[in-house]
């Protein structure tokens, strides 16, 4: 059914369709309207779930963990400071291999105080062992939440998933969303029945302690599961496409990358603007392309190499910064291309921090800057491309 929804409403709709049974969340802008909507669904009887009104984000994730180990499908959502406050629990949940799903309405971190979008919050949680999928549209937010439950609970993955949507730019922007039928979703996503759960008849310890002789083995298999998740993310996206007719490319979402001399890489909703810019420049005969990174963790090295290897310059736009170095995505793309014969030059750009608008002309400027460098190289000098910062 075609419905006019914003990104947060699309997420709430997905959580209802996924038949999440326990939701625990704490309000924070711009996430709050997700859980407000879920509370409404529960209140009007259209969703059979327990809503735990916790006193903090740390507690939200702890409560979700507690509910998940009893064998229920759970959900939470947060942003920014709230995600930072969850940091300890993030590791705990992924370490315990609890397949829960959390929406993150991406927002910058204080100080200075901000409530607007950037990716610093989730990027700072890069190493918490969560799968991170960044979406472009409200439709994708809905579809990815459904996919996320399937990916997380896959027996070879058993890893929690963050579905990241840009604060306001997606969370509060309304557009047409095709809401799938409950029956179709039930077919895609059967009830959550983990291999084991809290049960006095077969007592277990969840989250045992492990000494130096055992701890690395658990971490090794956690890492293996995350690597394996690459394939599962692609498979689930494919299965979803077969059932619902919509696909997001799985790990990466290339756009006119073939034959491009400059490819822009970024994550999140800015992708839409980038597509417009690429169309424009292509019409003008410029050899540019675009690649949206959908899966930030696991980091799709092979898929990136396949899409980027033939180009001259990869411009990476980070809505985050690893202070004292550069944008995190830029570093990671460089690392992914390291050792590839004739690898493209990677230029890092930082922009869109704290909600700063990324306009088509900003992206066009990045393309032109990189194209200029390529032409300069053609005059016989080494290819050097400087990055930039949107101040």
């Amino acid at each position: 059914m075609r419905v006019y929804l914003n990104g947060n409403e699309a997420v709430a709709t997905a959580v209802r369709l996924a038949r999440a049974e326990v939701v625990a969340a704490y309000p924070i802008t711009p996430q709050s309207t997700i859980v407000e909507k879920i509370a409404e669904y529960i209140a009007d009887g259209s969703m059979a779930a327990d809503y735990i009104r916790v006193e903090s984000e740390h507690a939200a994730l702890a409560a979700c963990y507690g509910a998940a180990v009893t064998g229920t499908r759970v959900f939470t959502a947060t942003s920014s400071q709230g995600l930072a406050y969850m940091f300890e629990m993030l590791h705990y949940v992924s370490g315990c291999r609890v397949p829960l799903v959390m929406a993150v309405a991406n927002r910058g971190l204080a100080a200075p105080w901000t409530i607007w979008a950037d990716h610093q919050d989730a990027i700072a949680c890069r190493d918490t062992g969560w799968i991170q999928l960044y979406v472009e549209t409200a439709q994708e937010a809905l579809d990815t939440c459904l996919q996320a439950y399937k990916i997380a609970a896959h027996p070879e993955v058993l890893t929690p998933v963050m579905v990241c949507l840009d604060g306001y730019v997606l969370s509060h922007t309304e557009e047409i969303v095709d809401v799938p039928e409950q029956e179709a979703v039930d077919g895609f996503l059967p009830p959550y029945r983990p291999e084991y759960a809290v049960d006095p008849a077969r007592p277990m310890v969840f989250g045992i302690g492990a000494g130096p002789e055992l701890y690395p083995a658990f971490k090794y298999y956690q890492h293996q599961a995350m690597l394996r998740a690459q394939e599962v993310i692609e498979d689930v996206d494919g299965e979803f496409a077969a059932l619902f007719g919509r696909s997001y490319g799985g790990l990466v979402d290339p756009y006119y990358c073939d034959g491009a001399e400059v490819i822009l890489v970024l994550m999140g909703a800015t992708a839409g603007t980038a597509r417009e810019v690429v169309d424009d420049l292509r019409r003008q005969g410029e050899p540019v392309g675009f690649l949206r990174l959908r899966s930030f963790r696991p980091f799709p090295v092979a898929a990136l190499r396949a899409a980027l290897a033939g180009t001259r310059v990869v411009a990476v736009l980070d809505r985050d910064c690893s202070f004292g170095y550069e944008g995190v995505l830029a570093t990671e793309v460089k690392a992914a291309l390291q050792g590839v014969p004739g690898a493209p030059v990677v230029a890092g750009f930082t922009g869109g921090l704290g909600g700063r608008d990324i306009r088509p002309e900003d992206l066009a400027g990045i393309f032109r800057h990189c194209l200029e460098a390529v032409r300069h190289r053609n005059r016989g000098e080494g290819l050097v491309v400087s990055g930039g910062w949107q101040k």
Partner: protein
Amino acid sequence: MLQIRWHGRGGQGAVTAARIFGLAAALYAGWHAQSFPSFGTERRGAPVTAFTRLDDRPIRDRSQIYNPDYIVVLDATLLETTNVFAGLAPGGIVLINSSRDVAGGRIPAGARLHYLDATHLAREVLEAPIVNTAMVGALAGLSGLLPVEAVTRAIADVLPEGLVNKNAAVARRAYELVGEGTGKPGAAYHDSRLV
């Protein structure tokens, strides 16, 4: 692409107006649409903006709107503190809720300026000075972008059940008053007091 900027004060329903207009366009008038509030917290009484984009192809641009084709002002007192005309596209249209000419000479050259006394209209029909649905109806009529049925159906989708009938009625009245999609002023245009 057509871009609309809505001006109001927190609590007046500018954000809802942007949504109703976008929903009406996308679900009931064959447009692709996108709507969003000015990003931030909405404090009651503080100036608020909201936006609607329409296009005949999918809208992918996620940047802010700087040069709207239409500007709708729900509260004329905003003209005293805010440059509501900022960035108006050449030949753009401005619709202000007022019973008199409050813009004076501030209107950019080439722009078309229209007034509707939506407050009066809302008091009559809704028995409350809530003007957002009237202004949605008026913009639909004035611009010819949407048929009035699209607006009334969108109102039914967005507003709580108890508020639908009167708001649909006020939107329809406003639509008729501004000229029923002809783009030409209707009878009660400039001073729209209903008798």
